[in-house]
């Protein structure tokens, strides 16, 4: 077990990797090397990294379309991630999924989902399997505060609460659902008031300090692993960019954004490390290592083979059908 300081250094490095990865992705998007929807996680990195630190490699993780951060935190290589954004065969989903649909089975990152509320029941299903096979795993499912009004949220939490599934539901309350502040979509301020309606534990905290996230999520994960059932967690956070690349985020003021940036999880971690006596050269070393990796992943993605037609056909059905190519025709 690494000392707190080394662990925090590792967390900082991962958060910095995520930040830089997405900054480069945004640049590539502007250059039309990436298409479709691109939802950035910038500002929320402490939640992905802190949560991952509370999990084992065997635990399952589900996320929305805002999935680059957790994918990298789980251990996906920047190469596989960037190649996916570029629509290449070397991508984590072989160029078929894109930004919203990252998958990394080896690291038990199970997507990458585009329909609001649609993946919560899937996560409950993975947790159901863990209970069924007694494999000792815990499932973590992330979603946004805007996803708490939809039926998929309710049904998944109802079943998880009823069956005491080993799962932790983490609501990343980044204050907006596209252009809509929560004040316009919920009469509640504290979303954990919903937890008892599902007979489950609730917890609520700020997600700016990666250590806090790791600790509080850790408590819920332990409860789940002990068979004491699910937890509904609301984490306060903020996204610094628009909902997706096409959103200029006119609905909030510069001042609000600047204010929020004071709680940038990377700045907070950097300050803590300084306090802990980590010197500039050590920080520079880390940042150079990350810069090199990000630089390399962009080159790798640009040079990689495009997604393949035969893969498109061969993945419609897993069963090897004679009729596989166009079963519909």
């Amino acid at each position, binding site marked *: 077990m690494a000392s707190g300081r080394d662990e925090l250094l590792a967390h900082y490095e991962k958060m910095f990797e995520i930040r830089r990865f997405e900054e480069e992705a945004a640049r590539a998007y502007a250059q039309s090397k990436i298409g479709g929807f691109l939802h950035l996680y910038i500002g929320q990195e402490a939640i992905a990294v802190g949560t991952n630190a509370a999990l084992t490699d065997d635990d399952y993780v589900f996320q929305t379309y805002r999935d680059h951060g957790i994918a990298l935190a789980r251990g996906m290589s920047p190469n596989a991630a960037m190649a996916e954004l570029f629509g290449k065969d070397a991508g984590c989903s072989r160029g*078929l*999924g894109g930004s919203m649909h990252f998958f990394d089975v080896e690291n038990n990152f199970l997507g990458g989902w585009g329909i609001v509320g649609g993946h919560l*029941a*899937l996560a409950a299903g*993975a947790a159901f399997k863990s209970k069924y096979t007694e494999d000792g795993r815990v499932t973590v499912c992330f979603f946004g505060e805007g996803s708490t009004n939809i039926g998929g949220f309710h049904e998944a939490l109802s079943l998880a609460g009823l069956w005491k599934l080993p799962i932790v539901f983490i609501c990343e309350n980044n204050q907006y659902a596209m252009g809509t502040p929560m004040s316009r979509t919920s009469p509640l301020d504290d979303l954990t008031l919903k937890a008892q309606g599902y007979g489950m534990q609730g917890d609520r905290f700020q997600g700016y300090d990666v250590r806090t996230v790791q600790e509080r999520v850790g408590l819920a994960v332990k409860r789940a692993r002990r068979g004491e059932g699910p937890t509904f967690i609301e984490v306060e956070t903020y996204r610094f960019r628009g909902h997706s690349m096409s959103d200029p985020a006119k609905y909030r003021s510069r001042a609000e954004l600047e204010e929020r940036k004071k709680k940038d999880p990377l700045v907070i971690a950097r300050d803590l490390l300084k306090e802990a006596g980590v010197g500039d050269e050590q920080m520079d070393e880390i940042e150079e290592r990350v810069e090199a990796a990000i630089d390399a992943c962009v080159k790798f993605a640009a040079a990689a083979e495009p997604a393949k037609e035969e893969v498109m056909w061969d993945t419609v059905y897993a069963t090897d059908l004679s009729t596989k190519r166009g079963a519909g025709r």
Partner: protein
Amino acid sequence: MRELRYREALREAMIEEMDRDDRIFLMGEEVGHYQGAYKVSEGLLAQFGEKRVIDTPIAEAGFAGVGVGAAMVGLRPIIEFMTWNFSFVAFDQIISNAAKIHQMSGGRLKVPVVFRGPNGAAKQVASQHSHSVDPFYTNIPGLYVVMPATPRDAKGLLKAAIRCEDPVVFLEGETLYNVKGDVPDADEEEVIPLGKGRIAREGSDCTIIAWGRPYYTAMAAAEQLAAEGTECEVVDPRTLRPLDTDLMIESVRKTNRCVLVHEHWPYGGPGAEIVDRIQREAFDHLDAPILRVPALDVPMPYATNLEELVLPTTQRVVDAVKRVTYA
């Protein structure tokens, strides 16, 4: 061979497969303690216990999603919809998740889940409970859609569906559950491959294509027509996606005429799809337009006198065959 009811054949298929592979479980409303709304799962709870026969709250989107999620990580769920009408609240789980995951993940995940339950009209259950859902699910690549008419096909195809590595939409019939028919003895395992149709009756004058309950309507019409000297070939595709196109084309090439019978609404669906394939691939062999005998294009009324008008009848099939044979 022995005689079994369609319901019993389905039950046997589940029992045999669950005995073989303990990753398989059955989940749905009233499947356990109540022994199944239509008694298909009668006795399964006692045999396999609450771990593998799971009663759910009324939350189709939730437990359909749980099935898909569990399948993603290695289990083999059988998800029962009390009726397919209730799959509409779970529609997104089937089209956006079940059917997409294998491809969306670049082939890295697969979803061996079976969704099953009764499809189509029962008797006077009115418009919200009388849907034939085959037009919706057959449109979707990534899904298999199966609709057996006989007890033998019900058992053999359900076993194949449970063994399939992809999501299968398995459409039964409430009015078929009591139908009796020959099924191979317990010791002769029969797994009927998905995607293969069946010539139920040979004939040279006209091909009648029908699946599910209308299969019986088609057979009755064929009998009646035979008595009048018109020999119909009855083809049951059994699997609607993928369709056994070759079998149907071959038959039409022989008879040069074709009539379809189905309970789904007229617009689109397997009915129109089969017509399209035949006119495209047997164009020069057709001596008459292909006709369809579908349900009428109305929400299902409650009154029994009207319900009888809406559903395909033997007489409507006979008339259609006479029109295409210019008899």
